[in-house]
């Protein structure tokens, strides 16, 4: 595994996008993408938490779980780390950056159950990334997720008054739009690819 962290960063934003290529974080992606402003808020919070948890989980896995042969505990450990990190971040920004808290606060509890966060931690174990690669992967995945949800919200705002067939309204048409977006992003796959 000798990939330039910069390559991983670019690839995880565009070609290996968390939502459009790996289907992670779909629940909030569909539920919260009605407005650009809230989508951007959620995207920022996800990026922030992803960056932090990918580093922490990498360190815990490499220095605590692996040396003692406890790899099978990683699911429990990762989810506890994520929950604790989210809680901690919530308390810190509430105390020191209240303006940020008002814009991100409501999204933070949602993030614990966002599959993208756990997914990134599991991917970096499977792909055997180093510390720097994990950091790049965390940031890139967060930015990619933000890009996708903001783009989707923009499209959904545009089609708000469009005559969509009744059964397709809501989740159905959102999935079709996401499919079209995924198709467009596949066009970028010639740029960089990671596996």
């Amino acid at each position, binding site marked *: 595994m000798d990939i330039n962290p910069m390559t991983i960063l670019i690839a995880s934003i565009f070609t290996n996008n968390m939502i*459009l*290529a*790996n*289907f*992670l*974080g*779909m*629940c*909030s992606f*569909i*539920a919260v993408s009605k407005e650009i402003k809230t989508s951007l808020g959620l995207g920022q919070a996800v990026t922030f938490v992803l960056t932090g948890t990918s580093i922490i989980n990498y360190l815990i896995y490499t220095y605590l779980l692996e040396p003692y042969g406890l790899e*099978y*505990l*990683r*699911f*429990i450990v*990762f*989810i506890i780390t994520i*929950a604790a990190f989210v809680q901690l971040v919530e308390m810190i920004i509430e105390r020191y950056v209240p303006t940020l808290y008002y814009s991100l606060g409501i999204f933070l509890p*949602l993030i614990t*159950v*966002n*599959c993208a966060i*756990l*997914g990134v931690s*599991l*991917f970096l174990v*499977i792909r055997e990334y180093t510390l720097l690669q994990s950091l790049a992967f965390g940031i890139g995945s967060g930015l990619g997720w933000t890009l996708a949800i903001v783009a989707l919200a923009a499209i959904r705002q545009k089609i708000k008054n469009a005559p969509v*067939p*009744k*059964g*397709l*309204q*809501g*989740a*159905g*048409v*959102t*999935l*079709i739009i*996401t*499919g*079209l977006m*995924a*198709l467009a992003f*596949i066009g970028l796959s010639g740029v960089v690819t990671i596996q």
Partner: protein
Amino acid sequence: MIKGVRNIFKNGVFQDNPVFRQILGICSALAVTNLLINSFAMSLGLIFVTSFSSLTVSLLRNYTPGHIRMMVQTLIISAYVIIVDIVLKAYFPAMSSALGPYVGLIITNCIIMGRCEAFAQNNKPLASFLDGVASGIGYMFVLMAIALFREFLGFGTFFGFAVVGDWWTNWIFMIMPPGAFFMLGILIWVANTYVPAKEENTGGAQ
């Protein structure tokens, strides 16, 4: 009692189907449906985890303090997911690597947490167990439906057996991510049109 059981199943599989009615747990529904066999393994894993975590949550419901119940539920679910992961690794290593991180992601599959919160928290253990099984079967039903079309169109096969001749051209598109999004979108459309809803639900998880 029998009628109650029938209602649980009818609701779990059709009327309140977790995937196309409540838009829950679609991450994995999209990711593993390029092959029927993957979807089948994933669904069995999910049925196991949902039913047993509902049972456990229900057994512990009177001893769990309200404000930490989410954490307790997450830990119970993770414990069962670890069992699934270890069994897959030990007996079906090929399947384990095909599903990759998506086995671990059963933990954040909102269906399980949703059933624990909405049903197991207030119901008796046996009913909760059956409710878990029913939701799991509802999930399996949708996964198999999507996988059936994606595998057939994408590879021309059914459970890995070729069912069409050489003249068939594979739709590579169907096994790539956009194919999954389109299939689920169409399935939701069909379901909303033909399965009568009890109440209007425009979709919105969590």
